[in-house]
């Protein structure tokens, strides 16, 4: 395994020589490319079809979220975080709300915590479903995409019934929730759990033992646990490399300490293991949802928070386990109504850094598979 520190940046500016002289070819993939999941641009240096190295060019979707935060109040900034990782908007909101709550030294009431957990875990499933569909599509299997989107629809329906939005939900408020769970919310969630369990089996039936799927994913984009830690890679990618670490277990937040679930890990750190880890994670999320729905307490849903929020001077770093990895918020307060500085630690951005290491020596087709398996959302990479 290559030591990530010894990777030197590529000289991509010199004009490529002809094939017969050097066998090298610089190819530009993206920003408009069907398999880069948005506006990621990857410059590949190839030897035939073998990747010698690559460089990511990002920032096409940069909207200056951190700058915006400094010019909005704490409450006003809340909807903006949904626009970062837009396929897991609920997780973003949870992280932000909890970070500000920590700054304010308040805690959301238990009922709110439970509903938050249910929605966040539903969102994790939705995010993984979207990942599975697009990842399989990248590798050439077109059918799983439609299956996963069909089932993700049910989650989005629950979101829509709960807060009126499907994608950028703005579901949580600082201090708890604005909306009480609607009539039949628990039943809907229970129905969903029993609905989606056989569906996950269905995805696995299509892919897990499929010969071509195995050949395309086994031993592809291998990254060791050590490299993962050095590169700051978190989430399912880290776990697939054999490091049993999950923010939900390591530094529990939002009531996760009360639930019984397991952290799946892989051994080889290849694309197939990452696939398996995410599949198990979906099932574990269902387990958490089942427990949460069964134990959902009565009570208030909003803690006592001042209308005009002026957190005391200080700074706080709070992170949660988003579907992609560790999503952290570092917030500095100067005692005014607006945050002095909000730093988002985006899992996609940091994970994307591993692409170069994971792709060296692989083939062009594997680059696609590895981009897919990293599960990046460009909205979060570029912010």
């Amino acid at each position, binding site marked *: 395994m290559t030591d990530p520190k010894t990777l030197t940046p590529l000289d991509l500016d010199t004009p490529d020589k002809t094939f017969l002289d050097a066998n090298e070819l610089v190819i530009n993939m993206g920003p408009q490319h069907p398999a880069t999941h948005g506006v990621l641009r990857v410059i590949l240096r190839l030897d035939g079809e073998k990747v010698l190295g690559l460089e990511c060019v990002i920032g096409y979707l940069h909207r200056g979220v951190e*700058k915006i935060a400094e010019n909005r109040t704490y409450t006003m900034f809340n909807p903006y975080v949904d626009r970062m990782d837009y396929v897991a908007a609920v997780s973003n909101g949870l992280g932000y709300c909890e970070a500000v709550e920590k700054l304010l030294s308040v805690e959301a009431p238990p009922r709110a915590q439970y509903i938050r957990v249910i929605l966040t875990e539903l969102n994790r499933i939705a995010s993984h479903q979207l990942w599975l569909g697009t990842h399989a599509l990248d590798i050439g299997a077109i059918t799983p995409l439609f299956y996963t989107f069909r089932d993700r629809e049910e989650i989005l329906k629950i979101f829509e019934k709960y807060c009126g939005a499907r994608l950028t939900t703005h579901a949580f408020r600082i201090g708890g929730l604005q909306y009480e769970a609607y009539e039949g919310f628990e039943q809907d969630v229970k129905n969903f759990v029993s609905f989606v369990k056989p569906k996950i089996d269905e995805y696995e039936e299509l892919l897990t033992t499929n010969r071509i799927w195995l050949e395309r994913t086994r031993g592809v984009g291998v990254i060791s646990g050590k490299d993962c830690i*050095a*590169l700051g*890679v978190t989430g399912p990618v880290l776990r697939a490399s054999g490091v049993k670490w999950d923010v939900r277990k390591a530094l529990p937040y939002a009531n996760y300490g009360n639930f019984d679930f397991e952290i799946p890990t892989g051994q080889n750190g290849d694309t197939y293991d990452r696939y398996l880890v995410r599949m198990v994670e979906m099932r574990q999320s269902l387990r958490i949802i089942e427990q949460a729905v069964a134990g959902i307490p009565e009570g208030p849903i909003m803690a006592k928070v001042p209308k005009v929020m002026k957190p005391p001077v200080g*700074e706080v770093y709070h992170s949660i386990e988003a579907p992609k990895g560790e999503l*952290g918020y570092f917030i500095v307060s100067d005692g005014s109504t607006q945050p002095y*500085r909000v730093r988002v*630690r985006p899992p996609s951005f940091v994970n994307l850094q591993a692409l170069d290491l994971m792709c060296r020596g692989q083939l062009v087709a594997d680059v696609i598979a590895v981009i897919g398996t990293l599960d990046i959302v460009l909205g979060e990479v570029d912010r």
Partner: protein
Amino acid sequence: MVENLQRMYGSGVNALTHLGQNYMEVDRTLIPEILQVLRDEEQFDYCVDVTAVHYPKREKQFDVLWILYSFARNERMRVKTQIADGETLPSSVPLWATCNWLEREVYDMFGIKFDGHPDMKRILLPDGWKGFPLRKDYGILQQDHEWVQINLGIESGQ
């Protein structure tokens, strides 16, 4: 751990806790050694984030922070230092490979250079952009009009 560090480095290290989160304020000159010790001896093997905060009214305008995590101790630690505008910091890429992009982003947003970084250039903004957006003196509507006009062929991006 903190006593240990303080014994070694004296008054340059100041350990504090806020809202249950540990952080230490470190003198600029001690940064490379402290980070090295934290990684090698105190097992902070995972660099979560590198970022900066701008305080234009201070003499040393920038706070630069390293958020570290130790898998072995299950503990987070923030290391914080103050530097003036134009001052550089040693790059921590040799310590944590993840700092590569994170330091580039700090440079991109604040204009803080890191010595010894393998590829110190802008990451999110285009290469020719002027100004560092997350500095407090950079207005929210401000942009590099010249760049926009040359590269996008439009009068203004707004």
